[in-house]
């Protein structure tokens, strides 16, 4: 009786959820195939075409619609995301490693780190730019001040992921390596790291994607040169053409590709983790 009612209700709920999740993307995709250069960002589709995709890559003859000014912003954002990913992941792994043993003030340090993802981004961005301008007196750049805010924001995510991974880690394999005369650093490189690699991968993915579309912190802290989200936002204030949607579809596909790579690497690592779990089961 109960399940006869609840199951369909849950099904409808999930269907609606998926619709809201992917609805915008579907609309975006459809409009991106609008005829160009005269077709606008609305229904109906006058005629299907790939004009706006070609426009994004500068393959169309010049028209009254300017090409998207994203080239440099895209590069900047990718470089920034990579930098953030590397620094946050390294910090995250190291600090989580430190938390494997309790130390004086560990609770305080824990909240201090996690605060980075709790504080409203606009405040962090504003505060950073005020600090840079008025107190330290340095210029704001995407690779200095904005980079700092990105690390402060993504580091806690990487930290929490690694903390969860290391929590389940059986440290007897490390002790085994020590007892074989292998120093702690080599042990970390040859034993610990390969085994926690799935977690490191997740931490990297978090840091990269969070940084790539970070807006509020970057808005104030990036200075003159804009990152991609800021550049996209900038085009909205003029006139919206379907080329922005074509661009959106392309970046989404890029994200999917990234996720697929992550999924493949993860599957490989999980198989290895399973081996380890099996070993523990027997013991």
């Amino acid at each position: 009786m109960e399940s006869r009612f609840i199951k369909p209700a849950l099904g409808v709920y999930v269907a609606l959820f998926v619709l809201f999740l992917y609805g915008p993307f579907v609309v975006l995709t459809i409009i991106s195939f609008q005829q160009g250069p005269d077709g606008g960002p609305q229904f109906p589709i006058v005629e299907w075409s790939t004009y706006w995709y070609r426009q994004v890559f500068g393959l169309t003859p010049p028209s009254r619609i300017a090409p998207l000014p994203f080239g440099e912003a895209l590069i900047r954002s990718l470089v920034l995301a990579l930098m953030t990913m590397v620094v946050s992941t390294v910090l995250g792994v190291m600090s989580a490693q430190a938390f494997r043993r309790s130390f004086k003030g560990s609770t305080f340090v824990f909240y201090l780190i996690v605060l980075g993802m709790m504080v409203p981004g606009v405040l962090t961005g504003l505060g950073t730019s005020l600090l840079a301008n008025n107190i330290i007196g340095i210029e704001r750049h995407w690779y200095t001040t904005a980079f700092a805010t990105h690390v402060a924001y993504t580091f806690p995510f990487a930290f929490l992921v690694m903390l969860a991974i290391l929590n389940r880690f059986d440290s007897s394999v490390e002790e085994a390596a020590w007892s074989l005369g292998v120093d702690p650093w080599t042990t970390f490189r040859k034993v610990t790291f390969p085994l926690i690699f799935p977690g490191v991968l997740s931490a990297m993915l978090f840091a990269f994607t969070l940084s790539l579309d970070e807006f509020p912190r970057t808005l104030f802290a990036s200075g003159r040169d804009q990152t991609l989200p800021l550049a996209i936002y900038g085009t909205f204030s003029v006139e919206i053409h379907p080329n922005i949607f074509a661009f959106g579809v392309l970046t989404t596909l890029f994200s999917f590709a990234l996720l697929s790579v992550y999924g493949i690497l993860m599957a490989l690592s999980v198989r290895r983790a399973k081996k380890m779990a099996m070993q523990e089961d027997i013991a």
Partner: protein
Amino acid sequence: MDTSVFRLEGVTKRYGDLVALNDASLEVGANEYLSFLGPSGSGKTTLLRVIAGFEAPETGRIFFDGRDITNVQAHERGIGFVFQNFALFPHLTVMQNVAFGLTNGKTRVPTPEAEGRAAEMIELVGLSGMEGRGVDQISGGQRQRVALARTLAMKPRLVLLDEPLGALDANLRSRMRNELRAIRERLGVTFLHVTGSETEALAMGDRVVVLDRGTIIQTGTPGEIYDRPASPDVAHFLNRFNLFEGTLSNGSFSASFGTIRAPAATRADRDCYAVRYDRVKVLPLSAKPADGPALKATYIASEYLGSSIMSFFDAGQGHLIEMEHHLSLGAPETYEPRQDYLLTWNPEQAIVFGREAAI
């Protein structure tokens, strides 16, 4: 002549309020097999971890090979450790596991030479042909051998074994026991073996160290431990003695079986009377033992153990008395369930503990 390889002096280790190891002192000779026996929580694993350098003691010194290693880090001690869960490197093959210490340790043996030495060890533990397998593709007993080969490949003079046979089934356990002994004799290594099994401790050790609540309560050869347990607790762990609570007074012990002369009592913190399972004799209720203990008990059941038979009797108030009959001494008598019998033994063979005893 000092043949000592390893020495502990007053080592104490606490976890918060819990004293895991209390003032432990010990000396181990070269090429000796020492087994540590104690119930879980007795501190035997802590003792091994302190020796290996995984835990630092609060007080006391540890000497190995003539030097003080108390403050030396685990990877610089040169002491092997075999884990109960084996702790193999799951991402490496059998060969890579065994060669790991050689290629990544202080000496950094080049891979071809390391693999040569590893192959010898793999052969020693009887795993030739499995070098290329992942450690998830081999059985529990084989993993145990890999763990052992991995440790022995480093040629340590001291190897710590933390319940290394605990994860194996009974058949495999006795086979591995023999192999451990054979390997030890071939390589001349000192083994410290922690176990919760009294059979294993007595069978494996040249000497047995009995631990309880973080304290070493007896050290001796298996024969000494078995024949002369130093305290009621040791007798209890050995799982070979019927224990009777009672009072020792003026050289006589009074308990449920009556009052018996006990001139050679051992000093202990409580009064206790111990009779080995195979010293108990069963008489019909009508018999009158001329002199000595007589305990009325109800027969419950028997267990066939191959070389002997264990019979269980209820002496009232839930006190279970066990009697072992070695089949080499003749066919066993049969008893009627729920019938009463008289249990007796030669008082000379009993071990008496008491507060008033001199020694």
